[in-house]
């Protein structure tokens, strides 16, 4: 497979960007200041949470996109087991890495948010917090597994199973606040209740859009890095074969001699 990437003169890609990803990046670069503007200036304070509500515009989108990222990992894993194609494996890996970053951001922004609102950084008894952390750790394990030396296929297969099992967590994290109403401080789904003000709602949507862009942009780049690095691994293949074949050089002559003599009896 070949990407439309920016190539240097010798035909090797010297970046993972292409014209379209640069456009995407540009949108992102413009979008972030707009989001900041809306989040900090235009949108109103909350009655109960005061200025802290502004974390909503980061916290919730990154949480949602960590779900999506892990979902993509699971999908990539399933397709890998089915088609055994490197494309799906690379997708799964790339998405898991981004998912871990987003999930980490969810935890961090949540903690920061928790400090003023709940008066604590962390609450062990809270199911959503802990299930989120478990999901985070599970995919850390996934990434650890990907570092283990093994043949690419074996590693991909093992990682695929772990990736699939990991997504069992998504519904648990998502539903946790309803299943365990009395063991959480965490917000129930406030969006579906429709009690957000217009501008807040708009800013929230804007935030989601920006993080969607961020996910796609990161994903494309990370995928390309993964793809190129596996290609790089294969780069020396021809040379390695030749070198290995050459090991036989000296012996071949000796054996040819032996065969003239009638071979070992």
């Amino acid at each position: 497979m070949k990407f439309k990437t920016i190539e240097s003169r010798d035909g090797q890609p010297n970046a993972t960007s292409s014209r379209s990803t640069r456009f995407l990046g540009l949108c992102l670069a413009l979008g972030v200041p707009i989001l900041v503007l809306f989040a900090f200036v235009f949108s109103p304070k909350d009655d109960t949470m005061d200025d802290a509500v502004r974390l909503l515009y980061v916290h919730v989108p990154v949480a949602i996109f960590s779900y999506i990222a892990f979902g993509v990992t699971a999908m990539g894993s399933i397709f890998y087991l089915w088609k055994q194609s490197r494309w799906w494996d690379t997708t799964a890996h790339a998405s898991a890495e981004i998912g871990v970053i987003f999930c980490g951001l969810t935890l961090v922004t949540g903690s920061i948010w928790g400090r003023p609102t709940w008066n604590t950084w962390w609450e062990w008894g809270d199911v959503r917090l802990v299930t989120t952390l478990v999901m985070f750790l599970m995919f850390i394990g996934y990434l650890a597994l990907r570092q283990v030396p093994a043949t690419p296929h074996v590693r991909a297969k093992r990682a695929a199973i772990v990736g699939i099992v990991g997504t069992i967590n998504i519904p648990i994290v998502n539903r946790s606040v309803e299943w365990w109403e009395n063991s959480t401080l965490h917000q129930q789904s406030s969006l579906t209740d429709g009690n957000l003000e217009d501008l807040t709602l708009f800013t929230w949507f804007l935030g989601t859009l920006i993080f969607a862009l961020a996910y796609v942009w990161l994903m494309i780049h990370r995928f390309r890095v993964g793809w190129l690095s596996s290609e790089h691994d294969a780069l020396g293949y021809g040379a390695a074969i030749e070198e290995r074949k050459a090991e036989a050089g000296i012996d071949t002559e000796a054996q040819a001699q032996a065969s003239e003599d009638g071979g070992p009896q």
Partner: protein
Amino acid sequence: MEFRDAWAIASKDLRIELRSRILTNQIAPYTLLILVLFGFALDADTQTLRDTGPGLFWVAVLLIALLAIQRAVKIEDDDAAKERMLLTPVHSSSVFLGKAIALFIQLFVLEILLFFVMLALFDLSVEDPLLICVSAVLATIGVASSGTLYGVIAAGVGVRETLLPILLLPVLAPIAIGATRTFGDAFGRVDADGWAWFGLLSVFAVVYTVLGMLAYGQLMEDA
């Protein structure tokens, strides 16, 4: 899949365990130690201990399960027996089932033992024995199945000892949490709906067993 094969594999694993007397001489005391350690680390009064009893019980079960799973993987890894198994007509789901059954039996025996120790130490009284029994069985099925599955994922990589816990603990944690809540309810100490949690445990048990039987072959394939 043939159940006869699964049973042959399970009894082989159990025989190896019995021969090395791991269960009685090593894991059982280890379990006790863990409880004592916790007691010390917490330094809590009886009331707290009573509340945390079920939690400690399941944390102890998890740590024991880790040990038992490590053993189960090691047995197959040590002298390439895993590879040899591939050159037999035995179906991989039988292998999975066999190893999971052996693990289940070992864990269950230990849990019974641990249970009575816990009753005595923490001075708890059982309000719903049925719930205790069925939830323990299902949680243990979940642990044994996911443990067997993850055991083969970590097998043969040289860094098995450390990789396995990381992969496995987040998988086992939800099971332990569920079981803790059911136990809490069954002991009448927590105001949780034990049977709802029990449902969660059943889901885990079924999912991991089915997943294991399907995926085990894929995973065993390559060393």
